């Protein structure tokens, strides 16, 4: 099973500009989580903090009992082996072929023979649908292929945690749907923790077990998907609805904090299920147990949805 990430009171600034502060959340082990946020709210910065590429000023990030913000360099390199990160543009090494890119982590960190590497790499390439592109250079690939190659490289060491930075950017809705399905299938197969950072509403509504949102330098909320999906908070409702009526403006400067807007809560869409033939997701069981404990603290709308969906005795 995957590994849990605990974040306490995290704050990050660049110079005088505060990106966000007081971000606390727990990404549950082995579950799918999505962090939403309008453009420019520091979602990618958050992801980079999680893997230790950036150092937050305050707060703790606990992974496997180690604080990523305060550990030694060797501990950090050790911890990073748990992570598989899909960068926005795939971040493939431009001087290597797709095959060598995907084989790179294996060659660096394992003593496998070339034959074993070939088998593993071919497996992953098949998984993301890149068969036949082995000898191509990243510059010769389309954006979607680069992204899938980046995913294959992130998966090749069998990470415990997969972080995806906007897996949908630059992809059409159909390809995005395939990628979403791929992530759900992965979770069903290997029970890995997945955190996706995105501003794509359809991903946010169909993929995750847990949903959170960053807005105006704060975390609006993070918890089981029902909480945010039924939220009447104007920011959340506007964002999930994807319209102009609400506090979110054209740019970060015009984003408002207060005000009244007619709240239109979009209805909850059913979550994606693994492709036929794959085992059921173990995360579902764990999440149900977790949410059952939280049930009394949920809003009435969220509670109703949970009960209606699960058939939990009232």
């Amino acid at each position, binding site marked *: 099973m995957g590994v849990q990430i605990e974040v306490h009171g995290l704050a990050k600034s660049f110079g005088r500009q505060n990106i966000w502060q007081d971000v606390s959340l727990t990404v549950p082990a082995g579950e799918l989580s999505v962090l939403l946020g309008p453009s420019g709210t520091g979602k990618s910065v958050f992801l980079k903090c999680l*893997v230790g590429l950036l150092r937050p000023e305050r707060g703790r990030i606990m992974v496997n009992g180690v604080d990523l913000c305060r550990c030694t360099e060797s501990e950090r*390199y050790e911890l990073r082996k748990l992570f598989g990160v899909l*960068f926005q543009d795939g*971040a493939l*090494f*431009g001087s290597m072929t797709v095959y060598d890119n995907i084989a790179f*982590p294996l060659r*660096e960190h394992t003593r496998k023979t070339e034959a074993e590497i070939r088998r593993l790499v071919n497996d992953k390439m098949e998984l993301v649908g890149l068969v036949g592109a082995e000898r191509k250079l990243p510059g010769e690939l389309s954006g979607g292929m680069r992204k899938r190659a*980046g995913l294959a490289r992130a998966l090749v060491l069998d990470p415990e945690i997969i972080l995806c930075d906007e897996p949908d950017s630059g992809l059409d809705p159909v390809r995005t749907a395939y990628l979403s399905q791929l992530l759900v299938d992965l979770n069903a197969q290997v029970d890995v923790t997945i955190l996706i950072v995105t501003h794509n509403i359809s991903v946010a509504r169909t993929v995750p077990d847990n949903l959170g949102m960053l807005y105006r330098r704060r975390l609006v909320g993070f918890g089981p998907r029902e909480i945010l999906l039924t939220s009447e908070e104007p920011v959340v409702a506007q964002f999930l609805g994807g319209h102009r009526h609400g506090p979110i403006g054209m740019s970060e400067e015009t984003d408002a904090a207060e005000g009244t807007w007619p709240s239109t809560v979009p209805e909850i869409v059913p979550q994606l299920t693994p492709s036929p033939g794959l085992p059921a997701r173990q995360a579902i069981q764990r999440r149900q147990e977790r949410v059952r404990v939280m049930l009394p603290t949920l809003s009435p709308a969220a509670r109703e949805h949970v009960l209606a969906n699960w058939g939990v005795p009232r």
Partner: protein
Amino acid sequence: MTAVGQMFALGLEVLRQLLRRPFQYRELLGQFWFVASVSILPSMLVSIPFGAVIGLELGSLTAQIGAESFDGAASVLAIIQQASPIVTTLIIAGAGGSAICADLGSRTIREEIDAMEVLGVSPVHRLVVPRVLAATSVAVLLNGMVSVVGVAGGYFFNVIMQGGTPGAYVASFAALAQLPDLWVSELKAMIFGFLAGVVASYRGLHPRGGPKGVGDAVNQSVVITFLLLFLVNAVITAVYLRIVPPKGM
């Protein structure tokens, strides 16, 4: 000011990672070949006029005081001790360093460096060390060649153009110059090459925002290296002249 500190830290980090296994032979060989191939011809071409100018200036001066026979002595000293390491590194920083900086810079903005770090591979160990090492060793090797070509250029202009005496020119080689001059010349080339590599890598790893930032970084890396070069050269020369007294005549 922080940039100076970080650059210094990168230099130390490179020295530390130099000893770490596995050593990146393939990357080093590729970089070595690249830096050498872009700098050999330009540095030869630059060293000929350098030798010539020193030869001509000295020639007219020594002719006035009747010391033509010392032409060779002075020009050999000037070329080996001063001109050759500087010319070598100017070319290495200009041709090799700028390419290193642009390469690392574009990798940084494409998030390749981040990706490498996340994959648990140190970019300093994997990319920077071979590049710095390549710049350093090419500088040392090239320095020897530039000295030879520079002295040959000086000889040509002095003997052929100004009608100097070939025998006197060659015979006076050892009048002023001594063996430590050669060592300090190579030491300078080594230090300058190292500096050029570190500065180029540092600027490449920290471009300021976007593709334009990479262009600026390349520009700055060359300028910073040049400035550092003259500063460090002055310091080394001053120290050297204290330790090794000039040869008396």
